[in-house]
Each structure stands twice: as structure tokens, then as C-alpha cells.
């Protein structure tokens, strides 16, 4: 299990590859992952950059609690959460979640639960910069 909060760009597929290479071969029958990246638009406005603020001590603690809860609720063999803070540009990854288990249902369901919990409870806040200035993102989309 691992949680990382990064203040610079990261390559999610490289993280998945490197993290999974440390696992025992043949242990996992399923891996599920979610990668959230920054769009260059929101609410019909072009977004140039975005600042991601967080509450450092609470964020780290909350992400670790999420991982522990996921491992309690599903038979996961391993779990990875990576989240960006600081200035983010379109196309860059914001969040990576990976779940590994013996069978697909646990990995898929835990990954889905983790991203929803993170989006609605982990203390991060987005501020967008567009052509008319900057604005705080006031709520998450419903994901549809």
C-alpha cells in the first residue's frame, strides 16, 4: 500500500509499471486503475492552468485511511494512490489509483469506491485560470 502527494508532474503509467514490478509474480489475477487528467475546458471556458491546494496533514492521513478501509472492505493484495498538488497544466495527470487483487470484482469495485471517496472527501481544492481570470471550482461534476 502506498499514498503519494506530489508537487510536480508525474507519469501515471510509469508509476503503475514500477509499482507492479515490486509485486510477487503470479499473485494477482486482476489489476484495476483510474487516472484523472486535467482538461483544457470546464463550464464552457478554456482553462489554461489549475492550482491544486490541499490541507497537507489531513490529506495524507485521509488517503491512508481510505487505503486501509478499501483493504478491509475488499480482498485487495495491494493499492496505490498518487495525487498532484500545485500548478497543473492541461494533459497532466491529477490522480492515479491502482488496485490489485486475485479476482476482478474486488479490484474494480475498490478502485471505483476509492476515486469517489477521494473526490468527495479528501481535502483538495482546485482553482482554475482561464482567459477571464481565475475561479475556484465550487463542486465536483457528477462524473457522467
Amino acid at each position: 500500500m502506498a499514498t503519494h502527494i506530489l508537487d510536480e508532474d508525474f507519469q501515471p503509467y510509469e508509476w503503475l509499471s514500477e509499482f507492479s514490478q515490486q509485486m510477487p509474480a503470479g499473485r494477482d489475477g486482476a489489476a484495476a486503475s483510474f487516472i484523472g487528467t486535467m482538461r483544457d475546458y470546464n463550464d464552457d471556458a478554456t482553462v489554461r492552468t489549475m492550482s491544486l491546494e490541499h490541507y497537507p496533514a489531513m490529506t495524507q492521513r485521509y488517503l491512508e485511511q481510505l487505503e486501509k478501509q478499501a483493504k478491509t472492505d475488499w480482498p485487495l493484495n495491494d493499492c496505490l494512490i498518487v495525487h498532484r498538488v500545485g500548478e497543473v497544466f492541461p494533459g497532466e495527470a491529477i490522480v492515479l489509483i491502482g488496485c490489485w487483487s486475485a479476482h476482478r470484482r474486488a479490484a474494480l469495485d475498490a478502485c471505483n469506491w476509492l476515486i469517489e471517496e477521494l473526490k468527495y472527501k479528501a481535502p483538495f481544492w482546485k482553482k482554475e485560470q482561464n482567459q477571464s481570470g481565475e475561479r475556484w471550482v465550487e463542486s465536483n461534476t457528477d462524473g457522467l
Partner: protein
Amino acid sequence: MSIQVKFFASLRESLGQSETTVEQVSTVSEVWDLATQSATPPNNLLVAVNLDYANMQSLVNDGDEVAFFPPVTGG
């Protein structure tokens, strides 16, 4: 007694302060009133005490850290 108070994101900007200290309080609601000069709390206000989610009726103790912030938008 002393309570450390923090504000984040749009709430920090609208209040014009990121942190302060208050004394002689017993609930989160009293912390808010003292720290903000009794500003009207936003309807969607979230609060944490010692890094765990709490509410305006939660009790506080000497040395606690209380944080106020708007709805989160990570991920």
C-alpha cells in the same frame, strides 16, 4: 487553553486570513465565531478537528487544531 484555527481555499480568501488562534472556547461553533468575528458561516462549510471531519457542535480541547474549508474538489 489555545486552539489553532486554519482556513483553506476560497474561504481563506473571502475571510482574508489563513490561520489564527482562539482561547476560551468549548465548541467548533464558538471557535468559528471568535475566529471570524461572528461571520455568517457558508451553508456548505466543512470542518475538521485534529484532521478528522467534525461538525459545528463538536467539542474542542486545549491544543486542538480546527480547520474550516469549502466543499472539496480533488481527483
